[in-house]
């Protein structure tokens, strides 16, 4: 299958390992990965902060870049949710019927959905001998309704010990620009998330979105919390062989 990767601008800039992992993983499963180089940002930050016109410009651009592809995969749950749940609203907010039609034709999948629902695999042949906790991000949980798909993928990883995260369904306090506009409340929220994460004694906290992971991981790092954060894709790409991490 030919799969177009939407890496998401946040990952493009800060977490290149996640895009590498998705590529390596999908190729290992026998699929062809293409990377449309004109891709930039889906417009999520502009939309959720109230900048409808700018969000619409970016949505149109996204639809142009990814419109022709049968399958678009992204390792960002919140970007997948933006394209699938918000683009129609963006189009209506700015009165752009053409964008609404274009958005309807986009086939954007979050990675775990693509693996489980489209490819029908849960065992992706990964090996990751660590204690791992999974944080279901709000977009994963309540917009995309990923349910237990990420957990099924993690349970099939050899060597991996999955531990339950208490109060997992509670938001980490990131919320995009919320983390800046309401920094104090945001920090109060992540403090509790960090407490729960550390309580699991996990080595690694994983999620389907690097936005939330940057937030929780940023707090863990500041506190020297001793827990690493990793995107789900990076765990699924790991096989124990050094090359599998996809570094050049």
């Amino acid at each position, binding site marked *: 299958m030919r799969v177009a990767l939407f890496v998401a601008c946040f990952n*493009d800039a800060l977490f290149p390992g996640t*895009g590498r992992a998705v590529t390596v993983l999908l190729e290992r499963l026998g699929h*062809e990965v293409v990377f449309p180089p004109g891709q930039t940002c889906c417009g999520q930050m502009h939309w959720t902060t109230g900048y409808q016109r*700018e969000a619409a410009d970016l949505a149109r651009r996204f639809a142009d870049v990814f419109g022709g592809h049968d399958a678009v995969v992204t390792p960002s749950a919140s970007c997948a949710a933006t394209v699938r749940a918000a683009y129609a609203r963006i189009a209506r907010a700015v009165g752009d019927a053409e964008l609404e039609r274009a958005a309807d034709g986009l086939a954007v999948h979050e990675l775990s959905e693509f693996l489980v629902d489209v490819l029908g695999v849960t065992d992706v042949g990964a090996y990751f001998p660590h204690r791992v906790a999974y944080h279901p991000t709000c977009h994963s949980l309540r917009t995309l309704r990923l349910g237990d798909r990420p957990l099924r993928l993690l349970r099939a990883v050899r060597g991996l010990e999955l531990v339950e995260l208490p109060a997992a369904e509670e938001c980490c306090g990131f919320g995009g620009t919320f983390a800046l506009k309401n920094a104090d409340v945001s920090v109060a929220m992540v403090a509790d998330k960090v407490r729960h994460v550390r309580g699991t004694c996990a080595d690694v906290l994983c999620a389907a979105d690097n936005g939330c992971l940057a937030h929780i991981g940023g707090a863990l790092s500041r506190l020297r919390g001793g827990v690493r954060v990793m995107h789900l894709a990076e765990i699924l790409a790991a096989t124990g062989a050094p090359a599998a991490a996809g570094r050049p």
Partner: protein
Amino acid sequence: MTGGSSAGGRDSSAGPVPLPMPKFAAAARTALADTGLRRDLRADAAALRRRREAAAGELGDWQELREAGRAIRDETLLNLDAYLERLEKSVTEAGGAVHWAADAAEAARLVTGLVRATGQGEVVTAAVPAAREIGLHDALAEAGVTVHPTDLAELVARLGGGRRPAARPAPPAFHRDRARLRELLARLPDAPPDLPDDPAALAAAARDHLRRRLLSARVAVCGADFMVADTGTLVLLESEGNGRAAVTVPDTLICVAGIDAVVPTWSDLEVLLQLLPRSATGDRMSPAVSTWTGVTPGDGPRELHLVLLDNGRTAVLADEAGRAALRCVRCSACAHVCPVYERTGDEPYGPRGGGPIGAVVTPLVEGVESAAHASLPYASTLCGACADVCPVKIDIPGLLVHLRGAVVESRRRRPVPTPELVMMRSAAWTMGEQGRYEAALRSGARWARLLSRGGRIRRLPGLLGKWTEARDLPAPPAGGFRGWWRARPRSGGAR
């Protein structure tokens, strides 16, 4: 005014609004530092979430009920004018009087005038959700009327116990530990000096005090959760029974309710009565549900006044996207699951009420010109927990985003652009073309590496400094994803 309304300015249901409202983030800082408040809110949230989930979960058709509730509320709002006329007619025919208040000041004036007309210097209040919205207690105090609130949570708040829970109908002093409750109730003038801290004794002490107030009351002010248009029946849900006494014992009953509390028929009420208590307190039915229609000679109040409050509600109806917010039946379920509310409580949201729905309704009604009102739609991570529990399916995150759009559009009209607008525009411009975007990635990575130490950035300049107040940021590795992709041995695809 008896005791406590100025106690730390925390008397949330009736407190004055003397100063311009601060922005949410500033008010939230104060709340976040209040350890007692944080503990109470946490305990409330945990208990009420658990109870709501159990109460909703035991019904096989909860989702169908929610859908029915949504449909009833939408249809009512669509024909609100007709239902209000029908309500006025029914109430009047049953012997009550209907008064229309366009805004908070008029409502307060009306109630004060009605109380004065009775010649009484004292009133009891029971379950008046609009009290804070219209500044009721202050208005009555200014008119020289002594107010005796009769719900336990309000009593405890007035004795110095801080906030009362937002839930309607409120669970009685839900969040208090009993040692603290004993300490507060011991301050009652008629409390026994050796008051023990067991729940029965505490309840008895409060009951003795409140009962004396209620039995001697000549005038009562209460709220209504619903008003049935067909019959003119007012419906009040509560946990303690004080409301039942307040609507039964006095000679004059003054009921204050928002125009959105109208329901067309008793069968509509049946649906909402299943949704509201389960959502609010996790009760299958509220312990006391009072329904009363007009006046009945020789039984109950001789005079019934219904003050119908608009105060911006019809303006909200005119906003096609925003009108869904008026479906709200004030159960507070959205507040109980909100991770922001759990840490800040009601206060930072302003006098119209807190939680996610408050962050929607206040800017819808008041507009978004003031910085404080404009800050409310941003007082949410958009986590979506509220939308999942709302018994009438209000898409609260969607409304918050809609309002954020209104905030930004209003700022665009200002002669000098805000720094945020400049930043957002330039970000969108950068993202608008591949070359500009890739150049920005490269220069961003260079800056980030300059700012980083040991792979992490501990201090960022400007607005982004808010992030690094408490969180690190990883330094991006050289080359980024695109560098790796281009350098790949078999980089197929589009490059």
